[in-house]
């Protein structure tokens, strides 16, 4: 009784096998793989700021037209999965 569907299983095996080949191909053992992630963040820094600005603008516009105080639904004490359930 397998939990993984055969299609997904084949794909998974292929990908795991292929990624193993990838890792053996290049031996940059002294380079922190996290450096690419840091470089990437430098590249997208402007975009992140722009998106955040756009989000704030959207909230402001919504607030202006609805004239209602928005309730922050990000209460950390309430699990999002449960909060979602309760709304249903």
């Amino acid at each position, binding site marked *: 009784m397998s*939990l*993984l569907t055969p299609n997904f299983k084949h794909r998974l095996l292929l990908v795991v096998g292929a990624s193993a080949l990838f890792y053996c191909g290049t031996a940059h053992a002294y380079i922190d793989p*996290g450096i690419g992630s840091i470089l*990437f*963040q430098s590249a997208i820094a402007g*975009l992140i*700021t722009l998106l955040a600005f756009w989000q704030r603008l959207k909230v402001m516009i919504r607030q202006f037209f609805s004239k209602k105080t928005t309730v922050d639904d990000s209460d*950390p004490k309430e699990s999002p999965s449960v909060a979602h359930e309760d709304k249903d």
Partner: protein
Amino acid sequence: MTPTQKSRQAWRMKTRTSHILRDRGSFRDPDGYIFQKGGETFRSIVNPNSPILQTKYQAFFQAAVEEQLLLDYRKVPKTDADPADAIALIKPISLPIVTYPYEWSFSQLKDAALVTLELNLLALSHGLTLKDATAFNVQLYGNRMTFIDHLSFEPSDGRMPWRPYSQFCRHFLSPLVISSYLDIHINRLFRVYIDGIPEQVTVALLPLRSFLNPTIFLHIFLHTFFIKKSFRAGTSTPIKQTGAHQADLLSQLKAATSSLEPAKQTSTWSNYYENTNYNELAFREKINVVANIFSNERFSVVWDIGANDGTFSRVVAPFSDLVLSLDLDHNATDGNYIENRRLGHTSVYPLVFDITNPSPGIGFANSERSSLNWRSSPDAILLLALLHHLCISHNLPFSHLAEYFHSFDCAVVVEFVDREDSQVRRLCDSKGELADWYTREEFERCFAQRFRITSRVDLSDSCRSIYLLHPIQN
């Protein structure tokens, strides 16, 4: 007793003495480590500059504990019996059980991700940030996910880059996105990839349509492209601060994570109790019989194996300190977790667990992340409507099962379903095997070699019986 059981008992005996036993999985952080002494768990702090030791950050730690994002703790004085390299010690609240991401359902991993992001956002408002974002830093405590690593913080001016970004993507975003687009069982890959699902694997697994989602395109596809590029370039670049705020990136990741839902899949077990072949009366009787057994003989730790949506775990919960509600089905476990949160049950811990392939010891020396029976020792095992599946679908002989359950040296409450039962007949028919050996006589004969049959109750209008078994000492 198996060699594993023997060495686990020896380890437990050691932890109760005044010996200092460093946790085998606590070696990645140079600022401190977890150790056990006298049966209690402590965290030693080696770095004198750790934020938790500084007065100016105490408001953050207090707020994080109050908001139930961070596990509560207290500072304890260091004595000569404590590790020599420790500058200070803290004693976190003891977790009833340590669980790992490959044992969590979708909602548990999603909540763990959101707790990590929330906590980091709170830390940023106090001049701190996370230095790592591993899923192993979050634990199921009560009915919520809680961050447990008190040394994971470092001072920050709040500007990007956010150092744990890549780790967050591997540990949280990748498995959640794959679960959303492909298959909800993907958390199991954590067993193979202990440091999260590699970016290349995620990109290769995801369908092309997923890259139309801007979040996935940005944080997974483009991100992986940059990682590959820098890897090929083979040079290290000094970290440059940018003008962007970490809080903006974290808020975006939080919004993206919140919107993820598990892939729609109908599992065999998700609607189990709607498709049973016995009537409401027999079901009520079964609840009463189980509740009677557990109220008469109180067990501290119960493993409910094949718990499905946790109905019977919640029946025995009032009579126990901890119930591990174990099932191989992610959908059922997910529903179980959500239901416990809704009902406010804090002693039922739903976990994904396949009895035919239980969580092994993995990581360095196979002991960095230990097996489930190393982490928890049950006083009773509840096996309802499970045995016939193990025997007929998995060909597991009664003798193997009796030997395995006897190795826990605890009481076993087991439901036996006769071969005349329509579900058992269906199982045999679908397998094309008669499984002649699956009889009540054979079950009682094999289990009686290792257990004393304390009681047997036959459920009316069904072919089902509930047995209470106690182990015979070797």
